[in-house]
């Protein structure tokens, strides 16, 4: 095998109620604009502060696809690259704005076998300095040491 090895958490390694390491990301204006370009989402709330303010927002805010990717990153940074994101549910209760520092943290809720798949439910919360913005849950499929 010639590929580089990366750390992977196996299904057997996972404990229920285990906390995932926190992930943080500076949400600069540059990053919010980068977000619009990376996801081809030119809705003005994500690049025009005046429009965002008219909508009742503080300034431009991250879009759905960015928050989804950040949620998935919280799970895969912890579990490793052989992790398949099977299901993800997320609610944007409050926005994450340019100028914020975004955090993502998670906890293992449940591990179980279903249809021969090794699944782990993880509760994840994304927030900023003012608290929770985006509660989420993810179900990941992990490899097993028993194949």
């Amino acid at each position: 095998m010639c590929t580089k090895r990366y750390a992977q958490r196996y299904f057997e390694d996972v404990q229920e109620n285990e906390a995932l390491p926190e992930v943080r990301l500076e949400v600069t204006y540059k990053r919010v604009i980068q977000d619009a370009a990376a996801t081809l989402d030119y809705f003005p709330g994500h690049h025009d502060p005046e429009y965002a303010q008219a909508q009742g927002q503080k300034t431009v805010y991250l879009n759905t696809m960015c928050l989804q990717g950040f949620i998935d990153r919280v799970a895969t940074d912890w579990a490793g690259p052989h992790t398949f994101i099977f299901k993800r549910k997320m609610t944007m209760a409050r926005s994450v704005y340019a100028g914020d520092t975004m955090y993502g943290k998670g906890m293992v809720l449940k591990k179980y076998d279903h249809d021969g798949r090794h699944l782990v439910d993880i509760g994840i919360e994304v927030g900023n300095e003012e608290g929770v913005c985006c509660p989420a849950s993810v179900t990941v499929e992990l490899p097993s040491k028993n194949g």
Partner: protein
Amino acid sequence: MQEAPTKNQTGFDLKFGTYEQAKAMIGAKSEVIFSDVEVNVPMIKYYAAHLEDANPSYWDEDFATQAWGGVVSPPGMLMSWLMPLPWKPSGRGAAPLLATQVPLPGDTLINVSTETEFIRPIRAGERLNVTDEVADVTPEKQTRLGKGHFITTVATFRNEKGAVVAKNKNVMFRFSF
């Protein structure tokens, strides 16, 4: 009370109308909308860079080929693949968001929640398409942002061979400034 819409700056071709007209769209399905671009490594790397996501499934072709049969799309890019390019010679394509076609009074919108199920990895080289369906439109509700309606849509994403790769239930709030 009907006012002429004057403030649609959303970039979407929003449809305007009453809640009764909106309710009549429950169950309506979109045409099949095809992606302007195939799932591709440069856009995958740009998105992963944006999130500072070091997952080698996006960066290390040898690893990704062994693990997944090729570089895979970050799951969060699912909807991005169907967003129309901002310009193309034949004219800009339709946004893959049937929620914007539901006739309602609101001038603007904000996304509220999504629930996604991935059937299998989406690999570079695949070309996705989507069909969207209106599942629900609520009566007018007052929120922190204003008065409006919540629109639930259910989208099915397929690859170029017709295999379903993901399903996405989305709730959007359509409201007035």
